[in-house]
């Protein structure tokens, strides 16, 4: 039974309840902290990085990390084949990974929401056309599609974002379409229609706010995937071009020296693993807390 003291407090909204659920998941909260740390590193890279990431010093060529013989503490993680400080390059590389990951997800989610809402609410030929495009794009293995586009457009930051977003929008689109199909038949939408609300009003003001949480959850988890894809393109030499530091190309650079200088490839790879793992765990925590289908 509810007592008087409880009644005096305003009731928790669903969002607050979900946020409470999320905050109780310690692993997910810790992972979110790691993600935030990476974002801060990326934003404040010029202030945090101990050295210029592109400054070469051939006297420090393949210098080992500080705790290995021959290393020094001012170059904590050692240097690469051109004598560049690996830690500084990892800090600057976070900018590329996070910027590309966020930009691709932002572009893809925006397109996916517009296409998914239109297909799910308007139905008819709009749905047929959008669903066929989705089917065709799903016909390509992701990396191969991106590699083909990069071959066509040439390397560059904007081109990577486009090459990845061209297919990525399909995923939020499918989620939004499915949710819209289920929501459009609900009574409150019927009521809005009966009151003469425009289609745009119903899609944007009535349906969208109610289907946003699964979209946000999916987008978070997909960001981890996009970061790995960007690193893979850079590893193959199709991503951001040198001398700009990117984690994928740093791993690739170190490949030639794995016999004697393990640190060149190891640390940038570890950075990718840490960020992607943190996003995945935080994303799963969000899904468990915010998606009612995963509630116990």
């Amino acid at each position, binding site marked *: 039974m509810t007592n008087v003291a409880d009644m005096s407090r305003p009731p928790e909204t669903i969002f607050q309840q979900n946020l409470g659920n999320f905050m109780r998941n310690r692993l997910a909260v810790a992972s979110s902290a790691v993600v935030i740390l990476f974002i801060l590193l990326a934003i404040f890279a010029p202030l945090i990085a101990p050295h210029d990431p592109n400054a070469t010093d051939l006297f420090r060529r393949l210098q080992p990390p500080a705790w290995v013989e021959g290393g020094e503490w001012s170059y904590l993680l050692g240097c690469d084949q051109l004598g560049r400080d690996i830690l500084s390059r990892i800090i600057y590389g976070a900018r590329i990974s996070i910027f590309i990951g966020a930009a691709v997800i932002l572009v893809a989610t925006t397109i996916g929401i517009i296409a998914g809402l239109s297909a799910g609410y308007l139905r008819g030929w709009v749905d047929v056309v959008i669903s*066929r495009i989705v089917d*065709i794009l799903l016909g*390509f*293995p*992701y*990396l191969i599609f991106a590699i083909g586009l990069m071959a*066509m457009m040439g390397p560059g930051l904007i081109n990577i974002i486009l090459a990845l977003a061209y297919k990525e929008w399909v995923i939020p689109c499918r989620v939004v379409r499915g949710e819209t199909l289920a929501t459009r038949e609900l009574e409150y939408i019927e009521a809005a229609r009966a009151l003469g609300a425009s289609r745009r009003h119903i899609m944007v003001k009535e349906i969208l706010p109610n289907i946003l949480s699964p979209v946000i959850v999916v987008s978070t988890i997909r960001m981890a995937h996009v970061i790995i894809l960007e690193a893979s393109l850079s590893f193959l030499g199709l991503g951001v071009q040198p001398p700009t530091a990117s984690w994928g190309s740093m791993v690739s650079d170190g490949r030639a020296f*794995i016999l004697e200088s393990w640190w060149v*490839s190891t640390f940038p*790879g570890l950075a990718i693993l840490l960020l992607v793992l943190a996003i995945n765990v935080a994303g799963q925590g969000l899904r468990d807390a915010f998606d009612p289908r995963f509630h116990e």
Partner: protein
Amino acid sequence: MGLGKFLERVLQLVPVLLGVSVIVFIMIALTPGDPVQIMIGDQAITPEQEAALRRDLGLDRPMYERFFLFVGNAVQGDFGQSFYHRRPVSEVIAERLPATIELSLVALLIALFTSIPLGVLAAIRKNSIFDRIATVISLLGVSLPGFWFGILLLMLFAVHLNILPVAGRIGYSSEIEPITHFLLIDTLLRGRPDAFLDALSHIILPAVTLGLPMTAILMRVTRSSMLEVLQQDYVTFAEAKGLSRRRVLFRHALKNALIPTVSVAAIETGSLLGGNMIVETVFGWPGLGRLVVESIFLRNYPLVQAAVLLYAVTYVLLNFFADILYTVLNPKVKL
């Protein structure tokens, strides 16, 4: 599933395959750089010869005609000439394809043989050490970048422990006359167990690297579907009947729990194709994936075009196969 439904599904494939071909065609047609100039390279030829070459390649025709020519030729297995190899693209691809298929199949086997037992164990001993291991593997599997994991394995097994080779498909001393072009089979057919072991030692690291993401996904699917099946009435009934736990698990539960695993495995086999490019590059594996990456840098576009189309068509067909398989295995689902 009736024949009518099946044919309907086959017909639905046509627009997808056509759309995929249009995209691949446009992708390469819009690529900057004149194919004729790339083909000529630094050779001195007359403008007439250049015009003749352009005509031979069909580049003087309008775009839509070139598209139908491309699709028409592709259906007959003719993808034009590889600029770099100066041989038909189909011939070059056919040479490299067995290495890629062999690697993918071994990766698939590794994924199936590790994910199913671990997934089942994780489900029947929920919250045990097996369940924890399964959770860690499934998280790592989707978070580890394949190219880095491959390099770590190389550093450990090929450099530090020095027990596995660094790159390639087989050592020089073990090379044999090919029969099927699948080295693991050919070495046995030729009666060379030493060469078989050599080929096996070359394929292990790339196959494990390629198979890890699939292992993670299949393990998660097996675990959750096994957990679901174990709660079904028929399992409780079989146990109440007095059947041994082992018999209930393996004769009744597992059979049904594996239906989603098999379908997801068929879909994920398509994803192995995408991972091939990375893994083949890391391990110097002489397959199609590495050939495509090399061809992009050489601007050998007819080959890139053919390979992307081949990958996409295989992927579409595997998804179709997975759909059909799911329906056949699970009569409750109707197409």
